[in-house]
Protein backbone atom coordinates (compact mmCIF):
# COMPACT_ATOMS: atom_id res chain seq x y z
CA UNK A 1 0.00 0.00 0.00
CA UNK A 2 2.70 2.43 1.01
CA UNK A 3 4.73 1.46 -2.04
CA UNK A 4 1.75 1.95 -4.24
CA UNK A 5 1.19 5.44 -2.85
CA UNK A 6 4.82 6.39 -3.20
CA UNK A 7 5.01 5.15 -6.71
CA UNK A 8 1.88 7.02 -7.60
CA UNK A 9 3.28 10.24 -6.12
CA UNK A 10 6.42 9.81 -8.20
CA UNK A 11 4.35 9.38 -11.31
CA UNK A 12 2.14 12.37 -10.56
CA UNK A 13 5.21 14.58 -10.11
CA UNK A 14 6.68 13.20 -13.33
CA UNK A 15 3.44 14.01 -15.16
CA UNK A 16 3.54 17.53 -13.72
CA UNK A 17 7.10 18.11 -14.88
CA UNK A 18 5.95 19.14 -18.35
CA UNK A 19 4.76 22.72 -19.01
CA UNK A 20 2.11 21.71 -21.56
CA UNK A 21 0.59 19.25 -19.12
CA UNK A 22 0.62 21.85 -16.36
CA UNK A 23 -1.12 24.31 -18.68
CA UNK A 24 -3.75 21.69 -19.51
CA UNK A 25 -4.39 21.06 -15.81
CA UNK A 26 -4.56 24.75 -14.97
CA UNK A 27 -7.18 25.21 -17.66
CA UNK A 28 -9.18 22.23 -16.56
CA UNK A 29 -9.03 23.48 -12.98
CA UNK A 30 -10.64 26.72 -14.18
CA UNK A 31 -13.11 25.43 -16.70
CA UNK A 32 -14.14 22.01 -15.45
CA UNK A 33 -14.70 20.04 -18.65
CA UNK A 34 -13.44 20.84 -22.13
CA UNK A 35 -13.39 19.04 -25.46
CA UNK A 36 -10.03 17.83 -26.70
CA UNK A 37 -10.19 20.31 -29.58
CA UNK A 38 -10.84 23.23 -27.24
CA UNK A 39 -8.03 22.09 -24.96
CA UNK A 40 -5.57 21.79 -27.84
CA UNK A 41 -6.43 25.17 -29.34
CA UNK A 42 -4.01 27.45 -27.41
CA UNK A 43 -1.02 25.21 -28.04
CA UNK A 44 1.34 25.41 -30.97
CA UNK A 45 1.77 21.66 -31.05
CA UNK A 46 -0.38 19.37 -33.18
CA UNK A 47 -3.40 17.52 -31.92
CA UNK A 48 -1.70 14.08 -31.71
CA UNK A 49 0.99 15.58 -29.47
CA UNK A 50 -1.69 17.04 -27.22
CA UNK A 51 -3.37 13.63 -27.13
CA UNK A 52 -0.13 12.09 -25.93
CA UNK A 53 0.05 14.58 -23.07
CA UNK A 54 -3.54 13.75 -22.20
CA UNK A 55 -2.62 10.05 -22.16
CA UNK A 56 0.10 10.74 -19.60
CA UNK A 57 -2.28 12.73 -17.40
CA UNK A 58 -4.98 10.06 -17.70
CA UNK A 59 -2.57 7.22 -16.90
CA UNK A 60 -1.66 8.75 -13.55
CA UNK A 61 -5.31 9.46 -12.84
CA UNK A 62 -5.21 13.27 -12.95
CA UNK A 63 -7.78 13.58 -15.76
CA UNK A 64 -10.52 11.47 -17.21
CA UNK A 65 -11.95 11.44 -20.69
CA UNK A 66 -15.57 10.74 -21.57
CA UNK A 67 -17.06 10.41 -24.99
CA UNK A 68 -20.30 12.28 -25.52
CA UNK A 69 -21.58 11.82 -29.02
CA UNK A 70 -18.70 12.62 -31.34
CA UNK A 71 -16.66 14.74 -29.00
CA UNK A 72 -14.39 13.66 -26.18
CA UNK A 73 -14.74 15.71 -23.03
CA UNK A 74 -11.79 16.00 -20.67
CA UNK A 75 -12.03 16.82 -16.99
CA UNK A 76 -9.85 16.77 -13.91
CA UNK A 77 -10.34 13.92 -11.49
CA UNK A 78 -11.38 15.57 -8.22
CA UNK A 79 -8.84 15.13 -5.45
CA UNK A 80 -6.24 13.49 -7.68
CA UNK A 81 -3.64 16.18 -7.07
CA UNK A 82 -4.13 16.16 -3.34
CA UNK A 83 -1.28 13.78 -2.42
CA UNK A 84 1.21 15.92 -4.36
CA UNK A 85 -0.12 19.14 -2.87
CA UNK A 86 -0.04 17.67 0.62
CA UNK A 87 3.51 16.49 0.20
CA UNK A 88 4.68 19.95 -0.79
CA UNK A 89 2.65 21.67 1.92
CA UNK A 90 3.81 19.43 4.73
CA UNK A 91 7.45 19.76 3.90
CA UNK A 92 7.11 23.48 3.32
CA UNK A 93 5.72 23.83 6.81
CA UNK A 94 8.31 21.46 8.27
CA UNK A 95 11.28 23.27 6.77
CA UNK A 96 9.89 26.75 7.14
CA UNK A 97 9.42 26.26 10.89
CA UNK A 98 12.80 24.54 11.23
CA UNK A 99 14.54 27.36 9.35
CA UNK A 100 12.97 29.92 11.68
CA UNK A 101 14.65 28.08 14.53
CA UNK A 102 17.92 27.78 12.62
CA UNK A 103 17.89 31.55 12.06
CA UNK A 104 17.24 32.23 15.74
CA UNK A 105 20.07 29.89 16.76
CA UNK A 106 22.62 31.28 14.30
CA UNK A 107 21.68 34.87 15.07
CA UNK A 108 22.20 34.29 18.80
CA UNK A 109 25.62 32.79 18.02
CA UNK A 110 26.45 35.76 15.83
CA UNK A 111 25.61 38.20 18.63
CA UNK A 112 27.82 36.26 21.02
CA UNK A 113 30.68 36.24 18.53
CA UNK A 114 30.18 39.99 18.08
CA UNK A 115 30.38 40.62 21.81
CA UNK A 116 33.53 38.56 22.10
CA UNK A 117 35.03 40.44 19.16
CA UNK A 118 34.55 43.79 20.84
Amino acid at each position, binding site marked *: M*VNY*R*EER*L*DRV*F*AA*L*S*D*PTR*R*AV*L*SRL*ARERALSVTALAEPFEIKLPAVMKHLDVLAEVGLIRRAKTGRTVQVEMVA*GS*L*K*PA*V*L*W*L*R*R*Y*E*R*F*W*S*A*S*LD*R*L*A*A*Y*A*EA*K*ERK*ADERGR
Partner: protein
Amino acid sequence: MNEVCLVRRIAARPAIVFEALVTAEGIGSWWGPDDFPALSAEADARVGGRFRVRFRTADGLEHECAGEFLEIEKPGRVVMSWRWVHGGMIEERGKVSRLEIRLRAIDTGTELTLVHSLLSSEHSARAHEGGWDGALKKLTRRFPAGPEFSTN
Protein backbone atom coordinates in the same frame (compact mmCIF):
# COMPACT_ATOMS: atom_id res chain seq x y z
CA MET B 1 8.98 19.85 -9.91
CA ASN B 2 9.20 17.31 -7.16
CA GLU B 3 10.88 19.45 -4.59
CA VAL B 4 10.41 22.00 -1.89
CA CYS B 5 12.63 25.07 -2.16
CA LEU B 6 12.89 27.75 0.52
CA VAL B 7 15.10 30.83 0.73
CA ARG B 8 15.84 32.54 4.04
CA ARG B 9 17.95 35.53 5.06
CA ILE B 10 19.75 35.13 8.34
CA ALA B 11 21.56 37.85 10.30
CA ALA B 12 24.66 35.75 10.91
CA ARG B 13 27.79 35.13 8.88
CA PRO B 14 27.90 32.01 6.66
CA ALA B 15 30.55 30.31 8.84
CA ILE B 16 28.20 30.43 11.85
CA VAL B 17 25.20 29.21 9.85
CA PHE B 18 27.35 26.46 8.38
CA GLU B 19 28.31 25.22 11.85
CA ALA B 20 24.62 24.97 12.67
CA LEU B 21 24.17 22.61 9.71
CA VAL B 22 26.99 20.18 10.36
CA THR B 23 27.47 19.89 14.12
CA ALA B 24 25.38 17.80 16.50
CA GLU B 25 24.80 20.87 18.69
CA GLY B 26 23.72 22.87 15.67
CA ILE B 27 21.44 20.28 14.14
CA GLY B 28 19.95 19.53 17.54
CA SER B 29 19.08 23.18 18.04
CA TRP B 30 16.83 23.74 15.05
CA TRP B 31 15.77 20.50 13.39
CA GLY B 32 12.02 20.00 13.76
CA PRO B 33 9.07 22.33 13.33
CA ASP B 34 8.15 22.93 16.97
CA ASP B 35 10.00 24.83 19.58
CA PHE B 36 11.56 22.05 21.62
CA PRO B 37 15.20 21.12 21.99
CA ALA B 38 16.11 17.93 20.15
CA LEU B 39 15.98 14.74 22.21
CA SER B 40 19.28 13.65 20.70
CA ALA B 41 21.50 14.60 17.81
CA GLU B 42 24.60 13.18 16.17
CA ALA B 43 26.59 14.44 13.23
CA ASP B 44 29.78 13.18 11.68
CA ALA B 45 30.51 15.98 9.26
CA ARG B 46 32.57 14.41 6.54
CA VAL B 47 31.58 12.98 3.20
CA GLY B 48 30.02 9.59 3.98
CA GLY B 49 29.57 10.52 7.65
CA ARG B 50 26.15 10.09 9.20
CA PHE B 51 23.77 12.32 11.08
CA ARG B 52 20.77 11.49 13.17
CA VAL B 53 18.37 13.70 15.04
CA ARG B 54 15.42 12.86 17.25
CA PHE B 55 12.90 15.51 18.14
CA ARG B 56 9.42 15.92 19.57
CA THR B 57 6.55 17.77 17.96
CA ALA B 58 3.87 19.81 19.71
CA ASP B 59 1.49 16.83 19.58
CA GLY B 60 3.86 14.95 21.91
CA LEU B 61 5.05 12.48 19.28
CA GLU B 62 8.69 11.66 18.71
CA HIS B 63 10.33 11.60 15.31
CA GLU B 64 13.75 10.67 14.11
CA CYS B 65 15.49 11.55 10.87
CA ALA B 66 18.80 10.16 9.72
CA GLY B 67 21.03 10.38 6.72
CA GLU B 68 24.48 10.77 5.33
CA PHE B 69 26.55 13.77 4.34
CA LEU B 70 27.00 13.46 0.58
CA GLU B 71 28.82 16.71 -0.15
CA ILE B 72 30.37 19.26 2.18
CA GLU B 73 31.83 22.50 0.89
CA LYS B 74 32.60 24.72 3.85
CA PRO B 75 31.05 27.27 4.24
CA GLY B 76 28.86 27.33 1.15
CA ARG B 77 27.07 24.06 0.61
CA VAL B 78 25.95 20.83 2.27
CA VAL B 79 24.13 17.94 0.61
CA MET B 80 22.60 15.17 2.70
CA SER B 81 20.57 12.08 2.14
CA TRP B 82 17.57 12.08 4.39
CA ARG B 83 14.93 9.70 5.64
CA TRP B 84 12.57 9.14 8.54
CA VAL B 85 13.61 6.33 10.82
CA HIS B 86 10.87 6.90 13.36
CA GLY B 87 7.58 8.78 13.21
CA GLY B 88 7.54 11.36 10.47
CA MET B 89 5.26 11.23 7.52
CA ILE B 90 4.03 7.73 7.02
CA GLU B 91 3.94 7.82 3.25
CA GLU B 92 7.59 8.82 3.27
CA ARG B 93 8.81 6.10 5.55
CA GLY B 94 11.73 4.12 4.18
CA LYS B 95 12.13 6.53 1.32
CA VAL B 96 15.38 8.39 0.90
CA SER B 97 15.27 11.95 -0.28
CA ARG B 98 17.93 14.56 -0.86
CA LEU B 99 18.49 17.73 1.07
CA GLU B 100 20.73 20.46 -0.26
CA ILE B 101 21.49 23.64 1.65
CA ARG B 102 23.42 26.47 0.03
CA LEU B 103 24.75 29.51 1.85
CA ARG B 104 25.72 32.81 0.28
CA ALA B 105 27.22 35.81 2.04
CA ILE B 106 25.09 38.94 1.77
CA ASP B 107 25.43 42.41 3.38
CA THR B 108 23.19 41.49 6.29
CA GLY B 109 24.64 38.03 6.86
CA THR B 110 23.66 34.91 4.94
CA GLU B 111 21.16 33.93 2.34
CA LEU B 112 20.23 30.28 2.80
CA THR B 113 18.59 28.18 0.10
CA LEU B 114 17.13 24.82 1.08
CA VAL B 115 16.08 22.31 -1.56
CA HIS B 116 14.43 19.08 -0.47
CA SER B 117 13.80 16.72 -3.37
CA LEU B 118 11.55 13.75 -3.01
CA LEU B 119 12.83 11.61 -5.81
CA SER B 120 15.90 10.36 -7.48
CA SER B 121 14.62 11.77 -10.77
CA GLU B 122 16.42 15.02 -10.19
CA HIS B 123 17.02 15.65 -13.84
CA SER B 124 13.37 16.14 -14.49
CA ALA B 125 13.17 18.49 -11.53
CA ARG B 126 16.06 20.55 -12.75
CA ALA B 127 14.91 20.61 -16.35
CA HIS B 128 11.59 22.13 -15.44
CA GLU B 129 12.35 24.76 -12.89
CA GLY B 130 10.03 27.70 -12.99
CA GLY B 131 6.45 27.60 -14.10
CA TRP B 132 5.47 24.87 -11.75
CA ASP B 133 5.25 27.00 -8.62
CA GLY B 134 2.63 29.34 -9.96
CA ALA B 135 0.63 26.52 -11.48
CA LEU B 136 0.70 24.62 -8.23
CA LYS B 137 -0.39 27.63 -6.20
CA LYS B 138 -3.39 28.08 -8.44
CA LEU B 139 -4.26 24.43 -8.17
CA THR B 140 -3.70 24.40 -4.43
CA ARG B 141 -6.43 26.97 -4.00
CA ARG B 142 -8.88 24.46 -5.31
CA PHE B 143 -8.29 22.13 -2.42
CA PRO B 144 -9.39 22.58 1.15
CA ALA B 145 -6.56 22.89 3.65
CA GLY B 146 -5.25 19.43 4.34
CA PRO B 147 -3.63 18.16 7.50
CA GLU B 148 -0.42 19.87 8.41
CA PHE B 149 2.67 17.94 9.37
CA SER B 150 1.18 14.82 10.89
CA THR B 151 2.10 11.27 11.55
CA ASN B 152 -0.87 9.32 10.48
